[in-house]
């Protein structure tokens, strides 16, 4: 895995010199405030603005500074969001502490819902059981109508149970910043409902020890009916309402401009954000920061035309900005040929990529011809003089990996994908393809096209995104809303436009009305 090492302004010194340790403590105190901000986040790209410039105003005051600190510094930063850098490994333990506290919060709402659901399911049974337990002897006997009600009660409870299990008992897939308004509304409704039923039950049945048992059973049956209707309301509000498309969301990734359009129904901003992120992971090609910028050779050529000389002044920051502004102004006035170079450079890169791709395809095809599936019948017919070695998929993959390794490596380097595919992952993918009888082209599909982000994720960790919005996030989507989903290194900007109202008119065409004439142009000699 490639890790670029950049040299930044602060130093992370080795611990075996006492003098430098004192120096480090002093520097660490300065930097403690801006370090906390970047520890959070599992994709931690530690971005430290250099706290002090290279020529430190403090340093002449210290007698025991380490003169070699410039050379011994390397800062390892994660260059691509989907690779694990060293920081991630060391901070993994810190993350697990943080996230355990936050994960409890994720389960509060389902727990509340579960308790309320359990109580409301038990309530009708309690309504029926309590009179039997407490004043059994004084109850009126109740014959066939009660039995009918018992049966209907039992089946309605069963249906409630099954549909609750099917619809609501699912682990939540997203932790939203604010409460989900509809769900809270429904929970409050159920609570009020059940509470009022208990209130009436307590006042009308338990206190005066009501003897009309059929009435009590009817009361319990009406509770179950009403619960079924509340569940219908919940189904409509939570699941069905947002299915009819009403808005078109345009999602643009800020770093490289990849955009998609999606149709959604009436959702709140936070739910729409969760939905957009689901689509993001499977639709958007993975973000490769190495593919972004214009080659440096082109950009620096603009500046290098002018050499600016300092006549005896210190190299302070004020003058350098003044110089660069002057250079920019002068460069803008001069005729700009960098588009030419960009064009040729791009053509060159494309040619290189195509050449390497051709080599890779040929190497892979050839490699795949070296193995073939071992049929059971062959074991009988193959002669004992040439026993063929029978391998399992892993060994077969390792055997044919060698001839294609170099071509694969060069191709990945040319397309800057080498950080996403380690040798281990290539071999395991090869093993997978061999097991399922895939052709070389199917094996290569993964490398020739940058796949969706989901393909490169390890799914055991949650993804942290920040929703940035000017309106409150529980507000419903409306035309012209713009909100951002931000992560440490990229952000998705989502714009909402309503879908147009369609006027569809009808026109009837008689099938007999399809008639044709020849376009004649005859010439007759007379």
């Amino acid at each position, binding site marked *: 895995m490639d890790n670029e090492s950049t040299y930044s302004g602060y130093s992370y010194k080795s611990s075996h010199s006492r003098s430098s340790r004192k120096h480090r403590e002093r520097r660490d105190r300065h930097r403690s405030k801006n370090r906390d901000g970047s520890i959070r986040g599992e994709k931690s790209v530690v971005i430290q603005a250099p706290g002090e410039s290279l020529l430190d105003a403090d340093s002449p005051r210290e007698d025991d500074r380490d003169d070699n600190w410039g050379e011994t510094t390397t800062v390892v930063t994660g260059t691509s969001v989907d690779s694990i850098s060293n920081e991630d490994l060391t901070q993994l333990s810190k993350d697990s502490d943080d996230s355990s506290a936050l994960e409890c919060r994720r389960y509060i709402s389902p727990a509340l819902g579960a308790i309320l659901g359990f109580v409301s399911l038990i309530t009708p049974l309690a309504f029926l059981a309590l009179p039997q337990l407490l004043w059994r002897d004084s109850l009126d006997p109740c014959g066939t109508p009660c039995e009918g009600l018992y049966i209907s009660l039992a089946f309605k409870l069963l249906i409630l149970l099954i549909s609750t299990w099917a619809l609501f008992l699912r682990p939540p897939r997203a932790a939203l910043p604010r409460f989900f308004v509809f769900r809270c509304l429904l929970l409050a409704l159920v609570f009020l409902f059940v509470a009022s039923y208990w209130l009436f039950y307590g006042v009308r049945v338990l206190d005066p020890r009501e003897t009309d048992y059929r009435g009590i059973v009817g009361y319990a049956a009406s509770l179950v009916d009403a619960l079924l209707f509340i569940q219908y309301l919940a189904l409509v509000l939570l699941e069905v309402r947002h299915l009819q498309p009403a808005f078109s969301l345009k999602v643009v990734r800020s770093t490289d401009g990849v955009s998609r359009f999606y149709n959604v129904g009436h959702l709140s901003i936070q739910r729409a954000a969760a939905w957009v992120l689901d689509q993001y992971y499977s639709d958007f090609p993975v973000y490769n920061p190495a593919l972004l910028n214009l080659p440096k050779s082109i950009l620096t050529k603009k500046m290098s035309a002018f050499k600016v000389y300092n006549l005896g002044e210190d190299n302070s920051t004020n003058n350098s900005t003044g110089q660069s502004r002057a250079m920019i102004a002068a460069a803008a006035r001069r005729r700009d040929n960098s588009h030419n170079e960009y064009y040729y450079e791009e053509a060159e890169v494309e040619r290189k990529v195509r050449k390497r791709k051709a080599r890779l395809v040929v190497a892979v095809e050839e490699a795949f011809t070296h193995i073939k599936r071992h049929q059971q019948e062959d074991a009988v017919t193959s002669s004992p003089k040439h026993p063929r070695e029978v391998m399992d998929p892993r060994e077969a993959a390792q055997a044919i990996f060698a001839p294609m390794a170099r071509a694969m490596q060069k191709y990945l380097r040319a397309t800057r994908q080498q950080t996403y595919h380690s040798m281990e992952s290539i071999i395991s993918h090869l093993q997978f393809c061999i097991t399922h009888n895939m052709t070389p082209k199917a094996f290569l599909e993964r490398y020739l096209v940058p796949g969706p982000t989901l393909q490169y994720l390890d799914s055991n960790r949650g993804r942290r995104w920040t929703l940035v919005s000017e309106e409150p996030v529980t507000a419903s989507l409306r035309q012209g809303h713009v909100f951002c989903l931000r992560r440490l290194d990229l952000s998705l900007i989502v714009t909402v436009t309503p879908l147009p109202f369609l006027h569809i008119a009808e026109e009837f065409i008689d099938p007999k009305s399809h008639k044709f004439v020849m*376009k004649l142009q005859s010439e*007759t000699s007379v």
Partner: protein
Amino acid sequence: MSFVPGQPVTAVVERVEIQKLRQGENLILGFSIGGGIDQDPGQNPFSEDKSDKGIYVTRISPKGPADLAGLKMGDKIMQVNGWDMTMVTHDQARKKLTKKREDVVRLLVTRKSLEEAVKHSKCSYPKH
């Protein structure tokens, strides 16, 4: 030469008299016609107005009777022996031209150069 429905058509015409030539069984005139109200006027290479469905001369056989009489390629035939040719089908035009009992056909044809010639002559001679 554009046709406005309901209005009379005015054109400068030339009188051409063609003697039919006997070739074996047939009497031939030595030219070909195209056009007609049942044809596609857009494909007529000789007409100025592409909605003109009149009968046009599309080909003249050299040294034939029509050539000798002075008929030119691209002429629009307005009348044949008194019969109107501006609103006829292609077949009706052919029939009017190839009547076996007639030896001579007298055509009234028009072409663009006739209009120009008249205009020229009107301008060059002052009115008195």
